[in-house]
């Protein structure tokens, strides 16, 4: 049993999960393949000279990992985006670990570390931290978009939908975890899941039917699949296209040399 007690307090329709995730992933792959096909129908030259690997690597660290170009536009602008970026990457990595745990042998060190060992606590802590980062970044971005004034950003349904998707995903994730903790006798390890533990305190003492938790779990699983399927067809595709553009531009911009001071 994990330090968080048992996961078996409500029914989880895993078959539905597998089907819905497969559908989501299939649509994602088809969409991305169509995007790649679209890009490669361009016949003009992308690079004027030989690509500069050095410039691309430097800019990858500075503008993709550290996002200095956002910092140049303002601290809060940078904070919003870097919270979403690293939070999203964190959740993605934790999901990958979750998938691996379904595949690796039950007696492997990896499985034991993340299910009954201290890895479980770190996993829970990292999950809450990453979720909180996405929540804060997406909420701040949404507020920023609807801030009134002459500089307010022109916002359309697609912009709101993308941020709303992120917020809903993280909020339902936290809610699920909070309800599970609330239905389990408290243990010190709960503190690692610090956001969900706090939320669990808000619903403590109330009986939540298992069927409602199953419905919420199903909704969350469907939402994740829908989000994955939505990426190639929405502005969320920028999570792949923008980094690609940034590194290509770094190589080309080096020819002119006035955009990236640190490349000189």
């Amino acid at each position, binding site marked *: 049993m994990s330090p968080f007690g048992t996961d078996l307090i409500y029914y989880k329709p895993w078959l539905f999960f597998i089907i819905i995730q497969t559908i989501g992933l299939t649509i994602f792959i088809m969409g991305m393949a169509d*995007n790649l096909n679209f890009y490669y129908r361009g016949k*003009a*030259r992308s690079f004027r000279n030989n690509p500069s690997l050095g410039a691309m690597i430097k800019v990858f660290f500075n503008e993709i990992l550290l*996002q200095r170009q956002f910092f140049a*536009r303002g601290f809060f602008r940078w904070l919003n985006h870097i919270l979403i970026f690293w939070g999203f990457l964190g959740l993605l990595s934790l999901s990958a670990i979750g998938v691996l745990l379904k595949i690796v042998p039950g007696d492997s060190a990896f499985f034991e570390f993340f299910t009954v060992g201290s890895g479980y606590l770190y996993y829970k802590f990292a999950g809450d931290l990453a979720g909180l980062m996405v929540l804060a970044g997406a909420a701040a971005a949404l507020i920023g978009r609807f801030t009134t004034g002459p500089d307010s950003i022109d916002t359309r349904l697609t912009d709101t939908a993308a941020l709303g998707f992120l917020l809903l995903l993280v909020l339902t994730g936290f809610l699920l975890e909070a309800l599970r903790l609330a239905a389990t006798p408290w243990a010190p390890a709960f503190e690692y899941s610090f956001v969900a533990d706090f939320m669990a305190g808000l619903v403590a003492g109330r009986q939540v039917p298992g069927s409602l938790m199953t419905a919420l779990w199903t909704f969350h699983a469907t939402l994740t699949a829908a989000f994955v399927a939505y990426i190639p067809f929405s502005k969320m595709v*920028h999570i792949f296209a923008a980094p690609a553009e940034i590194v*290509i531009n770094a190589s080309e911009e080096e020819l002119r040399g006035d955009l990236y001071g640190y490349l000189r």
Partner: protein
Amino acid sequence: MGISAKNKIPLSCLSPRQLIELDACSRCGECMKWCPIYAVDRSEDLIPGNRIAALKKLLKSQHGLRARLFAGDRFSKEQVDRLIEVLYECTACGQCHFVCPARIDTAELWEALREAVVEAGLGPLPNQAEYLRVLKKYENPFKEPQENRGLWVPRGLEQGTLYQDLPLITQSPQPVLFYLGCTASYNPEINLVAQWVANLMHKAGVKFGVLGNQENCCRGKLRRMGDGDFAAKAIENIDLLNSLGINTLVTNCAGCYKTIFQDYPRIKEINFKVYHAIEYIDMLIREGKLQLVNPVPVQLTYHDPCHLGRHNGIYDAPRRVLQAVPGVELVEMERIRQNSRCCGMGGGLKMGFPEIQALAAAERIKEAERTGAAAIVTPCPTCFLGLQTGAAKAESDIRVKHLMELVNLSVFGQ
């Protein structure tokens, strides 16, 4: 009625990078805060991010998965017409590139998209099409005969504004070619700028010549507005220039400079160095070949032309030249260098939307007025003319000066 199949916009005019750029935009809104055209025409579809989103939707409706599965989204003729209008209501100044977190190379993207819509028979706008027709027919946009192109030399000598005769480089080979461009060849006010440059180069002992009536238009406007004939027309010029045996080409026009320095080598190799006149004069001053001895007491502000600054990184040379003029006090505007506000003259906007150009230039003039300077200077003849329009529009008393006039005054005292 929707867009017809024969108006399908070809993706072949764009690079894979440019098609990725359409997806890289997250409509974050940064470009909206900086766009000089959106600042004066508050139509939301002019915002670069919105323009990208709309063009992407149109292209994907013709080429994407949805186009194949569901015959794509239907665009009405009015929607397509507006999209094309929006694509051309832009100076391609490149400001959005410099503030874009995804670093989308917008100026190049707009030009490639214009080429694609022209190939599809959807662009350019009627005024611009007429401008290009005249340009191709007369080799200049002023409908002037080609045999008048070199008349400025005898006229300048006669009027005493040009101090020395200039050899025709085709008859008397010289290492340096002074390339005027159309505006300096035919517009008397801008031709004075060319004469100042020629006088300064003579003074510094530069051996140079001109092409006279054999000089062609650089044809850069064809590229800016997406005319597919640009490459073939450019090759004619490249072959002519390569055959002259020169090692250096100097031009006083920022538009010609961008075309010859940046666009030509992408089409065919050139065998000479290219300088804008202000870079060249800066070099001559630093080499001690030109002495700026006469004071020109004036407080002025400097306007970075897009084609020199953002497009080619020439920010310091003009400022060094200004600082070399005794008596000049330079006060900078709020938006300078990479963030310099465009005067609205580039990208064919002036031909398609003259009123928007005047408004954009008026904004720049107001910015210059806020510095308290008596004059605004620029080394670009096109910006010089555009800012004059802006000063008139803003009913401003600020003087608009060409930078070469100050250098000429300081060197020759007149």
